Structures are given as structure tokens and as C-alpha cells.
């Protein structure tokens, strides 16, 4: 009895702490997403956690100018609405910038011989005994309670005018070939390293394991130099898609060969031996037996490589450059972070666009990702 009681208390603590950690880990992303669909005026004055409550905003509008005045019941009157099309409620108003909240709605305020009145729905009337003159309307300061507003405008804006749409296409252009090419190359090499006997095999395997941890930074300068030379030779410049595909292929290859070799070496040898006895060539064995059987490992690596290439910033900046038509999503986001640092509606929407594809891949194919991680490091 005692143990079960103690057990249930412990279980409760465990549920609570896991819940706490999960919230801690998801809140940053949730905040980003919620902010990205909020109205940009609300986003800049209140935290995203208040997104569902009404927000109070201090605003200023200029009333219609005197050309709109009409003669009604012996007085000159200008009528209009402060809130425009948006809904919300005016709670206080004022006629000077020093006292923007001086008056309650409905109050009649005198200003330079004019009577100004503002109502909760934003309607105002300015009236005077004499005909009003001047070119500009009066400024009216008011505090309004604006109900929560959600909108996709931020996304519309970043996709069109901030160039996110173009970058999205660029990212796809970089990522898909940079994922497929290394798989092909690595799968053949992995089969040879696992099941074919040739001198230098052990050395090659050790080499792959060693290259697994070589920092990317070692390659940048020498490759940039070589790319400059090659680009000059062909007259195409050093920043090309082919260049970055091959660079990502090179950087992803050690992991690809390592993962696939481990997997292929673990396939039952009898199948391969019996196929050899039947006179199948290594190419046939690879194509008809190994490839279909290693699908899980191929999928694992494909997901890794896809996430890595899509999320990469360094390789793209060095080998594809920062010019407008080549900028990938991560590069674009970095540029926006510099140029639009305070415009959170732009940044949050852009960030969400850059992470949405990897998130879909992640949640859709998590099984393979986990399997790949386990194969890649525990073994």
C-alpha cells in the first residue's frame, strides 16, 4: 500500500515536470508562430501572450479638413470616424498632444471656438457657429481598445515584397539535388566497402570515420580559392548551383558512407553469396537486392541531408553568395535580421516560412530520423 501511494505521488511529480519541460521547449516556437499571424500594429505594442485579449492603443488621427463642413441646424459641422474600417472602442480622447487622454468619450470639448465630441464607436463631430477655415483638419488623440486581430498579411508581405518567395525557390533548387546526389554516390561506395574485397578497404573506412568530424571551416578557404579559379576558367563566376550541390555532396558524404556502410554490412550475407553463386554481377546485386533492402537507411540519411542543407547558412553564404537572385531562405532571414531588425511582423513571418518545410519533414518522417540518429552514433 505504502509503495503504491509513494509511487503515485512520484508519478504525479513526473507528469508535472515533463509537462513543464515540454512547455519550456515549445513556447519559443509557439510565440514565433502566434506573433507571425498577429496584426503588425498590435504585435509592436503588446506581447504575443496577450494576443487573445483586447489591446489598448494610443492613436492619433487627423479629422477631415474644413472643405467637408456642412451647414446643419444653424451650425457648421464636420462629421467623420476615427477608427476607419477596423473595429474597436474609443475609451478616452484629447485634442492636444500634451493631454492625449484628457477627456472621456461623449464629452464636448472646446478648442479655438470649435466644439469637438468623440463617441465610443469612433464617430466624431466638430461644430462651430462660424464657418470653419484652414486647409487641414484638427488632430484628435485617442486611446482605443482594439479586439484581437489575426491576419495573414504579414505572410503576404514577406512572400511578395521581401523576396521570401524567390528565396524559397532558391532553397528548393539547392536542397533537392544536394540531397539526392550524395545518396547515389554513397550507396555504391558503402556497398563496396561492406561486401567487396579489395586492398586499401580498411584504410578507406578509417578515412571516412576520420573525415566524419573534420570541421567544415577547414575546407572553406581552399575550396573558395579553387572555385574562383575554376569559375574564371569557364567564365561563369565562382557562385553557381552546381558548385554548391557538389560542396554539400562533399560535406555530407562521410556521414552518408558511414551510415549506409554500417547498415549494408549488417544485411544477411547469405542473400548476397547465393546471388553471386547464381552468377549475378555486383552491379545487379546492388541494384536488385541491396538498394531495396537499404531503403530505411537511405531514407534516414536523406532526411538528415535535407535538413542539414535546407538549414545551412555557412556553405550557402560562401559558395552561393549574397546576391539578390541567389539568396536562400537562411541567408535571406539573416539579411532581414540586419535590415529589418525591429520589424517583428516581418521577421516572425519570414522565420516561420524558413522553418515550416523542415518541420513538416520532421513530423512526417520522424521515425526514419530517429532510426538514422541511432545508427549514426550508437554503433
Amino acid at each position: 500500500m505504502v509503495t503504491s501511494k509513494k509511487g503515485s505521488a512520484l508519478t504525479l511529480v513526473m507528469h508535472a515536470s515533463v509537462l513543464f519541460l515540454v512547455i519550456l521547449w515549445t513556447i519559443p516556437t509557439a510565440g514565433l508562430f502566434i506573433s507571425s499571424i498577429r496584426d503588425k500594429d498590435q504585435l509592436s505594442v503588446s506581447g504575443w501572450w496577450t494576443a487573445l485579449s483586447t489591446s489598448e492603443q494610443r492613436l492619433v488621427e487627423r479629422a477631415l479638413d474644413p472643405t467637408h463642413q456642412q451647414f446643419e441646424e444653424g451650425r457648421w459641422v464636420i462629421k467623420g470616424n476615427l477608427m476607419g474600417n477596423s473595429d474597436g472602442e474609443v475609451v478616452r480622447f484629447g485634442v492636444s498632444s500634451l493631454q492625449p487622454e484628457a477627456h472621456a468619450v461623449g464629452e464636448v470639448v472646446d478648442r479655438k471656438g470649435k466644439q469637438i465630441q468623440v463617441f465610443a464607436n469612433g464617430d466624431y463631430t466638430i461644430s462651430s457657429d462660424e464657418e470653419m477655415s484652414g486647409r487641414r483638419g484638427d488632430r484628435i488623440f485617442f486611446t482605443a481598445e482594439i479586439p484581437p486581430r489575426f491576419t495573414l498579411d504579414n505572410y503576404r508581405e514577406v512572400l511578395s515584397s521581401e523576396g521570401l518567395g524567390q528565396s524559397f525557390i532558391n532553397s528548393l533548387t539547392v536542397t533537392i539535388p544536394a540531397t539526392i546526389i550524395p545518396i547515389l554516390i554513397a550507396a555504391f561506395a558503402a556497398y563496396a566497402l561492406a561486401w567487396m574485397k579489395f586492398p586499401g578497404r580498411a584504410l578507406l573506412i578509417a578515412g571516412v570515420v576520420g573525415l566524419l568530424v573534420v570541421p567544415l571551416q577547414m575546407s572553406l578557404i581552399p575550396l573558395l580559392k579553387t572555385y574562383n579559379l575554376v569559375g574564371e576558367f569557364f567564365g561563369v563566376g565562382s557562385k553557381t548551383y552546381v558548385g554548391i550541390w557538389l560542396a554539400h555532396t562533399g560535406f555530407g558524404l562521410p556521414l552518408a558512407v558511414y551510415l549506409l556502410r554500417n547498415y549494408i554490412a549488417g544485411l544477411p550475407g547469405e542473400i548476397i553469396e547465393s546471388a553471386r553463386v547464381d552468377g549475378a554481377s555486383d552491379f545487379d546485386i546492388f541494384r536488385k537486392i541491396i538498394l531495396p533492402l537499404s531503403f530505411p537507411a537511405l531514407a534516414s540519411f536523406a532526411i538528415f541531408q535535407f535538413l542539414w542543407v535546407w538549414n545551412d547558412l555557412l556553405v550557402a553564404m560562401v559558395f552561393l553568395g549574397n546576391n539578390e537572385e541567389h539568396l536562400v531562405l537562411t541567408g535571406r532571414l539573416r539579411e532581414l535580421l540586419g535590415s529589418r531588425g525591429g520589424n517583428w511582423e516581418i521577421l516572425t513571418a519570414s522565420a516561420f516560412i524558413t522553418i515550416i518545410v523542415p518541420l513538416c519533414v520532421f513530423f512526417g518522417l520522424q521515425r526514419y530520423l530517429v532510426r538514422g540518429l541511432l545508427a549514426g552514433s550508437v554503433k
Partner: protein
Amino acid sequence: MGQLASALVTMILGVLACAAYFYGSNALLDWLFPGKNRPAEQIARNLRIANRIRPWLFVGPAVLVLTFYLFYPVIDSFILSFHGRTGEEFVGLSNYQWLLGSDEFYESFRNNMLWLIVVPTAATFFGLVIASMTDRIWWGNIAKSLIFMPMAISFIGASVIWKFIYDYRSGDDPQIGLLNALVVFFGGEPQAWITIPFWNNFFLMVILVWIQTGFAMVILSAALRGIPDETIEAAVLDGANGVQIFFKIMVPQIWGTIAVVWTTITILVLKVFDIVLAMTNGQWGTQVLANQMFDWMFRGGGDFGRGAVIAIVIMVLVVPIMVWNIKRANAEMEGR
């Protein structure tokens, strides 16, 4: 749309070229040294030759790419570190001298060491704790999935997410950054977190820990499940409590896996770049080696010699892990 179409075409061409190489080279080999319809003696000889060549057709592209993109650059970087700005004139050890005399280098090195200590430790610790807890509750898989999620987010995306959390408004304006809002809520003074020297490093590290904990959790969770039930049951019978079981039975059993997780994150940390670039670009005392190297690669037209020297430092820090990895892999292969 035009770009996507042409990209698709190049993409398909590239993949086809790759496939064509493997198919074509194998067909060529079979044609040169046919294994059928020839006198038995010749077939045996042909097969022997073909079998000697074929492995190299299979590994050839991989070896070429690895050599060009990873092996040769390591050597070239080493050579470049003895050369000047453009990588042409030999300058001896002067890049190394510059490095050892540069305050910025000591700052980056110190920060990298801080990252090395804090991030792998924190990520492994959280990963282990979460793994051991989620394995015992019914919604554990959902919890794991959510904690694992930041793995899929790019460093730069994560930087935007966290920069938003650390956002700072001066004066009485309402804080829209979560951290400052909390601080104000509890009666504190809002801070511009990422500009506070020294401590700002830790605010950047939080981002990487947030990303990497899921990785540690997934691997450690698999290892924990691999511990035989009998071991735990025996400990329970002997009267061990939960904490004792965790630290005295479970942790020692998965020590090897913890080491693997630790080193994997360590290597990642050594290369940390995007986060620092996006959050501070090395200002306010947050410089790290990888960002400093990137800086020198392009600063004022680029200084390849100095950039290469910093790359060498990163490489030297990785070498012990590399040696350990190779030894481990070799031992495994002998055991197979």
C-alpha cells in the same frame, strides 16, 4: 517559375549523369572483360580482372569527392596558414604570431571553451533526465516529439525565435520579449540581454542547448531501453530508490552512449557559427572561433592566411575526438 523549371531540369540531368556513370562504367567493364560466351580460361581471367577493378568504380566517385572537398582542403588550409592575405606569398609563422598576440583570438578561444563546457553538459543532462522520465509516462512519445522538434529548426531560425524572446524595449514601453516581460512581471528591471558582457554568452548557449537536447534525449532514451529489466528489478528488490537506481544502475550502464552523445555535441559546438553571427556577430564579447574565421575570410577583401590559421585551431581541437572515433570504429569492426 522559370527558375524552378530550369532547376528541375538541371537537377534531373545531374542525377541522371550520376546514374549514367555507374551504369555506364559497369557496362563498359562487362564489355571489356566479358564473363560469358568465352572459353572458360578467358572467363576466369576476365572475372578476376573485372573483380579487381569494379570496387574502384563503386568507390571511385566517393573517394574523388572526399579527397577534393575534405582531404585536400585540410592539407591546403595547413599550407595556407603559412601564407599571406591572398595565399600566395610565404610568410612563415607570422600568422601564428599574429594569432597568439591577438586579443580577439583569446576572447574567441575563451568563449569557445565556455561553449564546450556548458552546451554538451547541459544538453546531455537535460536529454538524460527527459529520456528517463518520458519513458515512464503514457504520453511520453508526444512529449519527446515536441522536445525533439527544435532539431529541425535552422540555427538562424532559432536565433530569430530567441532574439524575439530576448527583445528589449527601453523606458516604460510594454516589453514584447518574453524574458523581459517575465522580469518586469516579477518586479525586476528589463535588460538588453545580449549586450551584457560575459553573461550574454550564456544567453546564446541556451539556443544551442534548446536545439541539441532532443538529439541527446533520443539517443539516451534508446540506450536506457536497452538496459535489461532484470537489472532494475534486482535493484528494486534490494531496496534501492528511484534516484539510486538512476545514478547507480542506469547511468553507469549507458556510460558509453553518454560519451558518444557528448562528443557529437562537442564537435558541433566547436563549429558554432550561425547563432553568434545572427545574434551579435561577435560584438559585446561573444566572438567564437568559427565566426572569427568567417570574418577574416571576407573582412577587407579577405585574409586567407589568417582565416586558415583559425581553421587550424578548430581542427586541432577536433583531432583527439577524431582519433578516439577511429579507434572505436576499428575495435568494432574487429569485433564483428
